[in-house]
């Protein structure tokens, strides 16, 4: 595939992620931080996020599995997940976390369980999206091209 085509694909793909709500403007901020001195910054941060989120999700699963659910702890984990997901721009994950927190507040275990599933799902989805994105980027880089910056019109 030609470089230009790949680049176009990347742009379109990224735009679609925004359109579908997987990513939000914060992601752009991350992208802006990336520069020559730190060419893999976005990749590094996103990887870190997924590493961390996996731990958090495990903790959440365990916490909800307890006979006596500690809602405070639950809330604290979800809060953190919310913070980090919002920091990388993973909007849907963040929204799922917000819903999750609401159930924690009312101590609704069923609701929490459902939300946990949702958060996990969203994480999984966005992870895949990112992987595709990075792959495209790599292809571009490998072809000697530069990754186009996304200009969002909204």
């Amino acid at each position: 595939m030609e470089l230009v085509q790949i680049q176009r694909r990347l742009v379109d793909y990224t735009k679609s992620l925004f359109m579908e709500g997987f990513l939000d403007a914060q992601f752009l901020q991350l992208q802006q931080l990336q520069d020559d001195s730190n060419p893999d910054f976005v990749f590094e941060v996103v990887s870190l996020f997924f590493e961390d989120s996996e731990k958090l999700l495990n903790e959440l699963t365990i916490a909800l599995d307890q006979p006596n659910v500690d809602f405070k702890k639950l809330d604290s984990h979800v809060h953190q997940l919310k913070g980090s997901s919002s920091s990388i721009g993973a909007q849907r994950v963040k929204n799922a976390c917000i819903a999750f927190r609401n159930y924690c507040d009312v101590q609704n275990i069923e609701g929490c369980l459902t939300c946990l599933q949702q958060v996990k799902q969203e994480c999984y989805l966005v992870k895949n999206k990112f992987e595709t994105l990075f792959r495209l980027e790599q292809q571009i880089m490998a072809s000697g091209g530069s990754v186009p910056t996304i200009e969002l019109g909204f």
Partner: protein
Amino acid sequence: MNSSSGKSYMSTASSSVLWKAGGDVVADQFPAGLRVLLVDDDPTCLMILEKMLKACQYNVTKCNRAETALSMLRENRNGFDIVISDVHMPDMDGFKLLEHIGLEMDLPVIMMSADDGKNVVMKGVTHGACDYLIKPVRIEALKNIWQHVVRKRKNEWKDFEQSGSVEEGDRQPKQSEDADYSSSANEGNWKSSKRRKDDEDENDERDDTSTLKKPRVVWSVELHQQFVAAVNQLGIEKAVPKKILELMNVPGLTRENVASHLQKYRLYLRRLSGVSQHPSNLNNSFMNPQDATFGPLDLQALAATGQLPAQSLATLQAAGLGRSTAKSGIPMPLIDQRNIFSFENPKLRFGEVQQHVNNNKQTNLLHGIPTTMEPKQLAGLHHTAQSVGNMNMPVLSHSSQSSQNNPLLMQMAQPQARGQMLNDSTVGLAPRLLSPRGQSMLSNGMATNVSTRIGVPENIRAPSYNPVSQTSSMLNFPMNHTSELPGNSFPLVSTPGISSLAPKVAFQEDVNSEIKGSVGFMPSYDIFNDLNQHKPQNWELQNVGMMFNSSQHSNSLQGNLDHTQSVLVQQGFLSGQNRNSTVISKAMFSAGDCSGHVNAQNSNQHLNSLLDNTVRVKSERVADAAPANLYPDHFGQEDLMSALLKQVGSFFSLYDTDGDIILLILTSKFPIFLQQDIIAPAENNDFDFDGYSIDNIPV
């Protein structure tokens, strides 16, 4: 001048140039190089923020734990210009970190969180954060954080700049130093900076620092303790920076430093008090239904006041011992006192109390009541009452508590150390001895100045105190655990005469914390002696739930421990009926000069343990002494009174479980006893002050 010393504000030399030029001119490079300390437990955020800050050209140090951040800050106080911290962190709450930083280092702190709820943001404001960022944080928001640094510096430098041009640089510090030290801001700044940098040669640095960064006063633990001591001495309500500054007497400290520190401290206390409201244990404890049967004893109130001057006595007598006048007719100040003490004892176990005292920072109940004042604090005490306070008399509820005595005594000291000095006014505890009915015994006439807020908490549980345990706590001390202590009920000895006890009739209500009353006896009294002599009134002894003999030494506080006479509250003996030894034994005092024995021992029945004094109240003795009916109901309060009056005042202070003094009751020369007992032991309690034997006092 640039950062020759590691302390310069900016690591980059260039920035210092501009700063030097004078404060508000922003260096070309500034805010580049701003030294930011970033604290967040979320690694993703940490990484992103770090990158962003670096993109702003700041000098970033990141850490993911609050403890780490604090230690970094402590090690290198001048190493950072601003701190950015997350609110929710596992090891320490972000707001707590914020407080620490504010108190210790006085750096601007920005809070951030994914939580944008109004309450949280408000919390940030009240805790003193200079800004609050909502996650996800955008780089634009970070670009401007330098404004907080400048703002803070500017405010601090204002005076400095006015006093001399900043440009003077090197000389400036010197000048200010030479200048009249009364110039607070400058002086403070310079002094602090000076303090930090030992040698004068660092003018350059100082210059840099001053221009770049005002030297901050480092509030070390010691300094802070001095501050707290001064504040307690003055009373939190009355503590003004100027006076605190004077009391602290720390060279180089400016009024402004103190003022800002005071502000933070107040916030801190407010927060604490909001959190730590004791669920009125005091009330409960006071009224512990356990045996305490306190007879309304006005005298007690008297006793409590410790400082009852002769005139007061007269008044008391006139007042008919309050008994009649007492609201309930049976004021049992003494009893209450007893209780108070007794519970105190238990609480105060020596070891415990001390620890408590030490640990407890919060409520200084007795502001100014120097029951255990630290020497420094003691110095401030001006009331004799205070001194009385020192004498911690272990009011031991009889019988079982023998062990308590000591603790009491000793403890008293400790709690005080916490700086709980009853404020001046409170020293005179006017025990509000409230009769069970809640009438204050003192009001009966005894109005001793002692306002004791006695929350006789469960401590006094000694069942043995039956007679005493009347609920009519004589001391109805509003045991306010909070700092309000000082304020309230201590009418302080200064009230001559017997002023009616504080209005707080039911201290139960007030009691909100466990109070350990510690009774301090002023040395040199030998109530017992007197009592003994009063055969006809044997009840005296018996009645004395607590006999305090305290000479009104105004400053005995200091030495109190030495003098502390363990006072055993004798409970129960009051009641004519009971003259059981228990009653008497409750109070052990070591009358006379206690030379250092603070150990209040009290074997329940024998007072003697305490001191070498001649007067030993022994339960048996007392009982023996008393004629068959100790006190007929009418026992003659007058008699009692006179007996009491003869004694040297004593005081006792109550400490709460934490070792904070809650109440200091000054009594003047008369034993405190529960009238109730004398009169009708059966009454029971509204307050449960019973004579708890110290041992029994549940802690």
